[in-house]
């Protein structure tokens, strides 16, 4: 930052004051919640908000740095938290003792074999097979491989379900699980990114929306892997749990850990933003053709950032799910885990990580508080309606009141896009 001009330094300072004011207000808001609802409640809310902040940073680097449109956040959160669950949940001895385990191992060998064969066929054009024929062969062999794999997995998975319920975890430390969460989510992002990043931005949105639904369908129906609708709990904590040390301390430890993680991630990402790498990312975002003509590998850099963002989403998801100690694939919905994160990022200010963190914590507090508020509002309205107009409120008023939040999320997105496209903490262009 040697060449920072006086003008931009002044600009930075003015922005800094705004940051301080907003974050102080946020801190006061958390204190207020702690005062009204009690410390354990406020601690829980803050931990969850920090987990969302990690996810929001992940989206912020995808969208704010590189302009990549990801609406499959829910799928990455779900995949990441499942990976973490699998790595860190205690070992299910019944499974490893049963003869279903070697059968399942064989099935996985088949899977690897099938992937290798289809992969080789898809590359056959390199050795002179006509491109069209190669494509056709790949699609046909892919379909056959899919059916074979399906039938190969059928027997072992039913055996697992019958003999042991499900396969259980690996019993490693939860922090290893979180790392696995990042790895798996990053891997999924790599595959999606590899396919879609060279194409127009809308395609990425459509593909990510689809992959999220498919990950969810798979984890919901694969009872042998996730216990499906039976759900898995309690997920282990990397710190002493409330059962050992009480709510206040347990949650405080968890909060300290997630705050530390958030801080480390923030500092690293911030450093990357000001590094030549970050400048190149912005150059690609703002003028793709110019960046490409300067010899930058546009799609390669985009893939990098898409994977990095995806990994952060996976880790954030693991943080969130481990904290609640319950893994229920049906509990992941686009609204809470995709669009809420979008509101956080665009409200906070796309391209600014402090904005993403502020947006995440603030929006999450509003989100949590809006549940009782919406219910109260609807109850008041229905009471008035009954007293004044003899209106009979429908029986499912409570659930309808919660739908109010869907509407408000949508309205917020459209209003912010129209009237405050840069959010409350806009991106500050670093010069130098």
């Amino acid at each position, binding site marked *: 930052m040697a060449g920072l001009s006086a003008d931009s330094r002044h600009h930075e300072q003015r922005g800094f004051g705004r940051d301080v004011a907003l974050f102080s207000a946020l801190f006061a808001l958390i204190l207020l919640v702690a005062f009204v609802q009690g410390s354990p409640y406020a601690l829980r809310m803050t931990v969850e908000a920090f987990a969302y902040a990690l996810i929001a940073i992940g989206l912020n680097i995808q969208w704010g740095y590189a302009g990549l449109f990801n609406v499959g956040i829910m799928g990455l959160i779900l995949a990441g938290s499942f990976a973490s669950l699998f790595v860190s949940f205690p070992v299910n001895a019944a499974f490893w003792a049963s003869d279903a385990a070697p059968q399942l191992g064989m099935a996985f060998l088949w899977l690897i074999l099938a992937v290798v064969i289809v992969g080789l066929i898809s590359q056959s054009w390199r050795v002179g097979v006509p491109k069209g024929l190669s494509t056709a062969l790949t699609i046909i062999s892919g379909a056959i491989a899919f059916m074979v794999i399906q039938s190969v997995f059928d027997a072992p998975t039913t055996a697992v379900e019958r003999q042991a319920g499900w396969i259980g975890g690996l019993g490693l430390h939860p922090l290893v699980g979180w790392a696995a969460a990042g790895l798996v989510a990053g891997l999924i992002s790599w595959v999606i990114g590899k396919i879609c990043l060279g194409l127009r*931005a809308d395609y990425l949105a459509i*593909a990510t929306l689809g992959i999220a639904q498919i990950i969810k369908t798979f984890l919901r*129906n694969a009872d042998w892997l996730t216990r499906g609708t039976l759900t898995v709990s309690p997920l282990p904590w990397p710190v002493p749990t409330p059962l050992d040390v009480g709510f206040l301390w347990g949650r405080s430890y968890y909060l300290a850990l997630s705050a530390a993680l958030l801080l480390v991630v923030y500092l690293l990402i911030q450093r990357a933003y000001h590094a030549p790498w970050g400048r190149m990312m912005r150059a690609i975002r703002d003028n793709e053709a110019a960046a490409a003509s300067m010899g930058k590998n546009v799609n390669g850099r985009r893939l990098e950032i898409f994977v990095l963002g995806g990994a952060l989403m996976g880790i954030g998801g693991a943080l969130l799910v481990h904290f609640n100690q319950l893994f229920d694939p049906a509990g992941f919905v686009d609204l809470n885990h995709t669009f809420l994160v979008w509101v956080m990022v665009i409200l906070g200010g796309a391209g600014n990580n402090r904005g993403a963190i502020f947006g995440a914590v603030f929006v999450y507090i509003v989100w949590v508080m809006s549940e009782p508020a919406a219910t109260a509002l609807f109850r008041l309205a229905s009471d008035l309606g009954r007293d004044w107009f003899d209106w009979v409120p429908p029986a499912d008023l409570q659930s309808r009141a919660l739908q*109010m*939040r869907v*509407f408000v999320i*949508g309205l917020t997105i459209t209003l912010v896009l129209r009237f405050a*496209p840069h959010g409350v903490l806009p991106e500050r262009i670093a010069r130098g």
Partner: protein
Amino acid sequence: MDELIFFVNRGLIGGLVIGSIYALGAVGVTLIFGILRFAHFAHGDVMTAAAFATLVLVGLLSGLGIDVGLPLAIVLLPVVFVLTALFTIGLDRAFYKPLRARGARPVVLVMASIGVTLMLQGLIRIVFGTGNYDLLGGERKVIYRIPTGFRDIVLSQPQALLIILTALSVICLHLFLTRSRLGKAMRAVSDNPDLARVTGISLDTVVNATWVIGGGLAAIAGVMLALDVNLQPDLAYNILLPIFAATILGGIGQPYGAVAGGYVVGFSETLAVFNWSVLLRPFAGVLPFDLPANLSVVPNEYRLAVPFVILIIVLIYRPTGIFKGRVF
């Protein structure tokens, strides 16, 4: 032979019905994509909204005792067509036009359309709850049975009408796009907006026409889908992915491609979840292996994976789609 008729009933008619729905949706999405340059994520909820509007109208008019031999929901289709068309123009004015005027990137419009989707979903659920509704107002569906000498070929009235309406819409659309001045203007804007503007085509008119066609066809698809299955708030949100798959498969901005894509996706989906062992059962004695009870390519839970896989294959191997749409 019974097995073959079962296949016709389940596989072919099922594919034709869902394919028609996808085709109607995809034509709208592809026109919007081609002319306004963004993926309209709210299209599914426009369909749902149209179906709920029909529900309200049917409720209001069912007391009048109108009887023309068709369900009221179908009689009201022209009204709902117009209402939905106006509604989508309103959506455009309120949410998309200001962004376009500011020169926002297309991807910002995609996000705005997601916001609109959420607003529509929220509003529909606040007003109607999350329960199931029946658009026929309690009447039984008329079922046509075509005797074949074996099992009957079964087709419900809404299904038959849907297939006819889709065919009619495609013919009308074709005539409109090739014969009328406005239709030609739309194609011109889709091909090259700057050049079209220079030749004096009014962009506003073209945009409005796009929404009328897109919204109107979405209304038909939504009402017919609600007649075929039950009407519920997330009726059409779930078919968004197949519609996008059909659009991209057909080629962005290619209405005929969208129709073809809709049927390809519809048939692949239906045939992928079809239990093929039913067809093979007569040959159980001569087959070298035991016939499993269920022999479908994909289990029914993974139905959604079929359009997704089609989408991925198209994106990898032919991002322009069958009919050479645009990629930019």
